[in-house]
């Protein structure tokens, strides 16, 4: 960065410690030179974990995120399976897959019905007070109701396996704690026809809204990059397990079928002085060009197929909408709904498996010093890596959460959007709206570890090279 660059700061959620602040650096000509999305959460949590007994970790890490605590629970348990030297028994794996599908369904429903569909339905330039869930329910009450009920279903699945709403102990090192009760299974099976039908409706709506604005979406924050996901041995998407596969921006396979422990050789993490969040990149491509996307948009294009028929048909339809790899951030929304349908189908498939209600739950093995777990969380690839001392205490923890994996991709998308929509040297509502839409497509974990009331304004500031605020906008929280 040169001293002549100007800074525009966009502070969407300064919740407690400046989470989710966006800074736009302008050059002398007033062009956006760089975008910086500041997120502060996760590195502190790594230090927080060190010194704790390993068996406590799958519960503690659930507090990393109020939206996807199950993903952290499962990822930690997978890493610690390796530490206890265990291969979880089939019943445990299937129960974990059920939890994971429930979590993904719930999280994807939240994102689409709560955040994305208002953007898509009402447009980026519409009244901000309408471009949210409340606006959505006013105009489309049935749609909003389905969103709430889909989320409730996912929540019920999780409660049934975890035993309670939060702080549960679903997955533990080597397995899980409990079977699914037969009456709960039967109740879920009765709800599945509705859940699948609503999921199909969501796919159709996301498709319609995307195709209606396809030309605008194509150019909105679109920046080509590599893609990363877990893929099963047969090439199908595996959200719970599998090998790492990466493709370059044109869709050529860079590596495939690599196990979790190889992540440290495949992915390097760059630290930059202005952010607490790391910048991962594919080691073979270097930090400049090796950044990548994770999450639904990447997953549907990295895998060869989905294992469930309705979702696979929807995936093919999605792929047919573009030529080559689709890098448009707004395509995340449609891809997310294809995955929602996949999870609904997968839950139905799992619920017919007797292993959910009987069979061994935990296995043991020879104790190891470290373990790596990787899972496809709702927002993308999630990596937990632990080293454990002979006294059973964690000695090192490395987390690469989905939002971190998407870090540079988000910055690039914001930069692209800001370049397109900036008007002079002022922060306008229009610029703010468009930056928000780009951020929302990725749905980063902006401040999921704290939720206190207050400090929820949307604040936009223009700061000159001397550090003085010359323009600002503030959007309050009701």
């Amino acid at each position, binding site marked *: 960065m040169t001293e002549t660059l100007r800074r525009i700061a966009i502070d969407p959620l300064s919740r407690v410690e400046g989470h989710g602040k966006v800074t736009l650096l302008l050059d002398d000509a007033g062009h956006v030179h760089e975008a910086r999305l500041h997120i502060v959460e996760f590195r502190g949590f790594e230090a927080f974990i060190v010194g704790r007994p390993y068996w406590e970790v799958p519960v503690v890490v659930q507090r990393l995120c109020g939206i996807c605590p199950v993903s952290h629970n499962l990822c930690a348990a997978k890493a610690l399976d390796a530490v206890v030297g265990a291969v979880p028994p089939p019943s445990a794996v299937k129960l974990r897959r059920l939890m994971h599908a429930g979590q993904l369904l719930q999280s994807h429903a939240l994102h689409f019905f709560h955040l994305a569909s208002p953007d898509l339905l009402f447009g980026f330039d519409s009244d901000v007070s309408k471009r949210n*869930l*409340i606006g959505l329910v006013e105009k489309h*009450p049935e749609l909003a109701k389905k969103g*709430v009920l889909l989320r409730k279903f996912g929540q019920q699945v999780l409660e049934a396996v975890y035993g309670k709403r939060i702080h549960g102990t679903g997955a533990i090192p080597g397995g899980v704690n409990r079977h699914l009760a037969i009456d709960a299974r039967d109740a879920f099976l009765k709800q599945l026809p509705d859940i699948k039908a609503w999921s199909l409706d969501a796919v159709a709506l996301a498709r319609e809204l995307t195709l209606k604005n396809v030309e605008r979406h194509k150019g909105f924050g679109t920046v080509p990059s590599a893609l990363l996901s877990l893929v099963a041995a047969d090439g199908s998407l595996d959200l719970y397990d599998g090998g790492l596969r990466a493709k370059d921006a044109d869709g050529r396979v860079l590596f495939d079928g690599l196990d979790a422990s190889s992540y440290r050789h495949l992915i390097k993490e760059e630290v930059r002085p202005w952010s607490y969040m790391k910048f991962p990149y594919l080691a073979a491509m270097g930090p400049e060009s090796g950044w990548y996307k994770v999450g639904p948009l990447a997953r549907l294009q990295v895998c060869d197929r989905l294992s469930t028929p309705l979702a696979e048909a929807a995936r093919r339809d999605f792929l047919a909408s573009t030529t080559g790899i689709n890098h448009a951030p707004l395509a995340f929304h449609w891809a997310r709904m294809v995955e929602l349908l996949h999870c609904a189908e997968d839950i139905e498939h799992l619920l017919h498996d007797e292993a959910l209600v009987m069979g061994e739950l935990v296995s043991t093995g020879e104790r190891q010093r470290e373990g790596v777990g990787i899972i496809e969380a709702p927002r993308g690839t999630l990596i937990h890596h632990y080293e454990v001392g002979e006294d059973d205490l964690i000695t090192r923890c490395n987390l690469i959460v989905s939002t971190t994996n998407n870090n540079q991709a988000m910055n690039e998308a914001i930069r692209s959007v800001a370049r397109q929509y900036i008007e002079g040297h002022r922060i306008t509502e229009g610029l703010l709206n468009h930056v928000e839409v780009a951020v929302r497509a990725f749905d980063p974990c902006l401040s999921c*570890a704290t939720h206190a009331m207050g400090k929820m304004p949307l604040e936009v500031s223009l700061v000159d090279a001397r550090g003085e605020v010359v323009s600002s906008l503030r959007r309050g929280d009701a």
Partner: protein
Amino acid sequence: MKARVLVFGWGNPSRGDDGLGAAFVGEAARRSDVEMLVDYQLQPEHALDLVGRDEVLFVDASTSGKEPFEVFELTPGPHVTVSTHHLSPGGLLAVYQRVTGKPPPRARLLAIRGWQFGLGEQLSERARQNLDAALGWWRSEAGAALAP
């Protein structure tokens, strides 16, 4: 049969005073017609937890309110956010209204002032004092029929 009153605290116990809502629910005096609920944060499906209630008390930490706590009457209201990671109580009431087609139950927010929101499981000393004051308010609010 659902309890007539719901007390719903939320927050993250690993974030110091952000856990005030959860701590309140953990320590608040019980009464048979009051259900206690705790979660990490508010979500749209929580609207279904409000169904059939006469009254709801939301409890959260406050980063900038008055000490030791404040109590606000809530009405359904707009909500603006950039992420799925936050829903306001007023926004939740609006979701309830639209999903059920009925006006929401009476709802208040008990906002307990917190001071330390860094990683750590302990409430700060000032937050602890504020929590005790809020618990005292609740005892008086809930009346003489409280269980021990």
